[in-house]
């Protein structure tokens, strides 16, 4: 038996949205303590690592660990029909492989959708020795990324002891965005040695846009030409982490 209830419909919707930008069919691990998912996009360029402790929910019941695979974009279609203050109840009946979605507000509606064959293999976590850790406001980082997007489709992220620099070079235009240590946007910066790596903006923009709905602070970790790890701090011990593989500089 799996059954959860949450009174903040928007929060639930935003969390699923952050997963949906990378995966279409998502296999969740449901345990008595938390809901967890780790998945890569089909191109294996980005990964989402997501944990939702039972404390986030108003009611949480899960008798034994199990897997649940659902089509996230279909689920989101239903959740988009909810208003902010509505209560959502998700339940999974073992006899009946369907996810039931009950939405209660001014009136009550109950949807159900099929569950799919869960993906058996677990996605591993990339093992990376990071050289730099930067703590930013999610919004500050988002603004910087959106500036870069004006001129290019990729951005180089660079750190030295004093600042975080985003360098975007397009065919005609370019941009340099600096986040200085101690500024409103950059809350903390620890650099063992200067590091830089380039990332696709199409991924970054989607990730930040979706994550900023539930997160105020983001921690970036990276090293020279290695994947970047971004932790978006979540309410109540939730965890939303993305990994993004770097671009390879050509020519």
């Amino acid at each position, binding site marked *: 038996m799996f059954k959860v209830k949450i009174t903040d419909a928007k929060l639930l919707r935003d969390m699923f949205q952050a997963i949906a930008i990378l995966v*279409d069919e998502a296999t969740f691990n449901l345990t008595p303590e938390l809901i967890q998912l780790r998945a*890569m*996009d*089909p*191109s*294996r*360029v*980005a*990964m989402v690592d997501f944990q939702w402790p039972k404390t986030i929910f108003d009611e949480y019941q899960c008798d034994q660990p199990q897997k649940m695979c659902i089509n996230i*974009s279909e689920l989101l279609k239903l959740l988009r029909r909810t208003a902010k203050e509505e209560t959502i109840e998700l339940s999974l009946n073992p006899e009946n492989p369907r996810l039931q979605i009950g939405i209660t507000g001014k009136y009550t509606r109950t949807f159900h959708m099929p569950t799919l064959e869960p993906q058996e293999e677990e996605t*591993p976590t*990339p093992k990376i020795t990071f050289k730099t850790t930067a703590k930013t406001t999610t919004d500050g980082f988002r603004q910087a990324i959106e500036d870069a997007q004006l001129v290019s*489709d990729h951005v180089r992220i660079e750190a030295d002891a004093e600042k975080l620099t985003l360098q975007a070079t397009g*065919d005609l235009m370019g941009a340099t965005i600096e986040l200085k240590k101690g500024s409103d946007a950059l809350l903390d910066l620890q650099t063992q040695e200067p590091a830089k790596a380039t990332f*696709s903006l199409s991924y970054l923009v989607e990730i930040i846009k979706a994550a900023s709905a539930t997160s105020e602070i983001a921690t970036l970790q990276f090293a020279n030409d290695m*994947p970047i790890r971004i932790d978006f701090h979540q309410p109540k011990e939730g965890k939303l982490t993305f*990994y993004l*593989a*770097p*671009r*390879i*500089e*050509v020519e």
Partner: protein
Amino acid sequence: MEFSLIADCYEKIESTTKRLEMTQYLVELFKITPAEMVDKVVYLTQGKLYPDFVDVQTGIAEKLAIQVVGKATGRSERDIRGELAKTGDIGETVQGFMTRKAQSTLFDGASLTVKTVYDQLDKAARAAGSGSMERKLSLLAGLLTSASPKEAKYIIRIVTGNLRLGIADMTVLDALAIAYGGGKEARAPLERAYNISSDLGRVAKIVTEQGLGGVQRFRVILGNPIRPMLAERLGSPEEILEKLNGKCMAEFKYDGERVQAHKKNGGVTLFSRRLENITTQYPDAIELFKEHIRVKNAIVEAEFVAVDENTGELKPFQELMHRRRKYGVKEAMKKHPVSIFIFDLLYADKRDYTLEPYPVRHEKLKHIITQGDRVTTAEFLAVDNVADLERFFEKAVEIGCEGLICKSIAQDSLYQAGARGWMWIKYKREYKSEMSDTVDLVVIGAYHGRGKRAGTYGALLLAAYNRDDGVFETVTKCGTGFTDEDLERIPKMMKKHRVPQKHPRVHSMLDADVWFKPEVVLEVLGSEITLSPIHTCAMNSIREGSGLAIRFPRFTGNYRLDKSAEDSTSNEEITKMYRNQLKKMSES
């Protein structure tokens, strides 16, 4: 089974132009393919995912393909377009970019299996509805990311419909015969199985799993289209009769769309001549088949012809093109109705009729259909002499048919699926006399209208003037070109000219519903002038027993009130027009 095995095989096939070598490479590939994958390998090798009659759009447009390559390699669409302009081949382009990718991945993927490739392509092909483009993009890009450069080349060629290995269906059958049928001699039964199922993958699976015995037990399956039997062509009735041992069944060759209809438990599926599923285009035909085919299960072949709903006249093939659409089917159905002329029966009541001679099939066909206004058997006539054949041919041409199909009625006249042979012989016109000028014709009779034209005339019987004899000779039946005002005006105008029976100065072999004194002259434009056994104009002047007729006539809107009946176009002028404009038709 790893996809690299397939990619390696394709590379070898591409390196040769010799059919024998290609066949040998395919044999090797089929031998290492597990039985449960062989159908998929066959579809992929043809650059497809399913047999043609499965109604799923497999291919993606170049624009989306470029986005896929961009996402998989991290290159900009501009770079890819630039490279594509140089190589001219999306396969080469992706192979190049895959060897120098601009985007790394978090983990290396496992090597691709044929099953993964097929399943992902299948998922992408079936993605529909909102967000389906993004889903296709992400699935295909994901597939490419896991592929080696060489594999990526062939995958992108398959999804863009550019896998041109030059392997004919028959080469696949040869390879299957050698790999699993015990040798090349097995090709004939394999070919028959293919011709009656149109599904190479299915044939491959059967021969791999059950051997040649399974193939020989294979029968027509309701729902799988049968590859159509085709006709040879001869230019003269003498040759045709000689080829068919002096007698045959001649059938009108309608100028329409050839359709194979499968009625299964009462439901109907339609396939085009190219075996595409065209069921959704003809909801009207579906209902007609349900009603007019009296058995629960059957496969019939028919010609769909556009008709004028007011007059019942046949219209040329181009009119049917209005029915080739996905949207607005209902409107098109109302504006462009079709008549159905059934000409063969391939399956009925659990019996495979392709193995029966034509007379048996035709007899059974007549038995299982209820003839009606819009559904009939194709007009047929048993003939054993040139004169009858010629007359029947002219009749066919005049009403708008292309000519005749003359069919063998011998014991061995089985339905030869997928084959062009001498069991059926086309007799089409070699000459055509196109009309470029209008003619002025006299109204001498009329037919009652139906449908929207109930209460007025559906068509007028028109005549040319024969000066020598002082008579009016019929040349065409015209029901096209009339506006609503014309339809209202003409009966009033003609009322005073009505006569109780055919006017003595009118020479007609046709029976009109209403007869008129020759008085009123209308201007008409036709598409061409043909020989006709039923119109009396210039009778015997070109050929003994035949007159001349105007095909596809249309009223121009001009009432030639200035002309008397005797001033109308004469039979001599029409003869001259026929002769002057006679042109050899191009082969088609």
